[in-house]
């Protein structure tokens, strides 16, 4: 039996989060079951259900060369800032 993945949104404005999975013969059964498994206490504002096969998983992100220029940790301003302040005479003391 195909397995269905469930994503739920708890409150308006929130992102959908993965909540679990269950087997069901087809989309109608899947809709019925998702309602009871994940929203019978009105704990979800909305649900998405997706056949597991439709989910594309990506986990491999090779970073072999330096890409820190794209990130905050690629910028250390400390040294140049100190030099600039000294020049401008704004360093205390």
């Amino acid at each position, binding site marked *: *039996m195909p397995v269905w993945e469930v994503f739920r949104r708890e409150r308006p404005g929130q992102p959908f989060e993965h909540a*679990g*999975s*269950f087997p069901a*013969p087809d989309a109608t059964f899947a809709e019925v079951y998702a309602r009871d*498994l994940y929203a*019978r206490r009105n704990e979800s504002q909305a649900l998405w259900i997706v056949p597991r096969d439709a989910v594309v998983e990506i986990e491999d992100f090779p970073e072999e060369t330096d890409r820190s220029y794209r990130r905050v940790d690629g910028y250390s301003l400390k040294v140049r800032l100190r030099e600039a302040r000294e020049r401008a005479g704004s360093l205390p003391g």
Partner: protein
Amino acid sequence: MENPRTEQEFLEHVQAGGVVEADDWMPDEYRSRLVKFVEMHANSELMGVLPERDWILRAPTLQRKLALTAKIQDEAGHAQLLYRIVEDLGKPREQSLADLISGRAKFHNVFHYPTVSWGDVGVIAWLVDAAAIISQKALLKTSYAPYARIMKKICWEESFHILHGRDVVLALVTGTAEQREMVQEALTRWWPPLMQFHGTRIPVEEDPTYLWRIKSQANEDARQQFLDGYVPQIWELGLELPDPKLRRRDDGVWEYSEPDWEELRRVVTGHGPATDERIAFRKLNLEETEWVRRVVLAEAA
């Protein structure tokens, strides 16, 4: 540590608080212990339905009927979540169910005992679920991440069970003399299995499920938490517990009479008072509904 690839690395990873996902590499021993542990949990939820479902018909008010049905529904739902985890670890649900009815797989001691009165309904929903929720809260920190995630849902749903159970007990202790006697008798009968519920005082260093951080709490810690939380609540209702040695020391540790570990071992290996009857019921039920699964699966294939 990222991506442990040897048993030693893996052990260090989980012991340092690292998590494991379904498609991560894991040592065979971790996988097999995990399957056994989660499967026992799933089996317990499934078998836990049986002692209670007779009382849906007999519930004395509409509200109690609804609450009890909803509680049992939750248990079926929890079994569903847990068997899913086992399935994603490589063991199909049909195999788990076959092992359950053949006696190859286990379920918790408390579900091997008969229920006798409406008093049992209150005591089970309040105290058995309380004992279970203590273990379940500790499992929020299990090394296996999919298990930890469903534990959140399970704990959230179980919290209403305890309130319902306590409400039932409260109604009985404030009722007629017969009602008070009913709940006291049930409590007296259920206390020994409750004391055995969290297992022996095995030190964590000798507990393999703890070494792999599948379990993250020592059995005795769980039992102490249970006693500390619930004995005062039981006593304040004027109910008695059948253990003259039960008391809280000045250092906060609870003392109690040694539980019958031999009884626990016998029960959990399939020799409880209601074990055979319940397994037979499950077996029959599976046989009678086999055609439905066959018909539905055939078209879904």
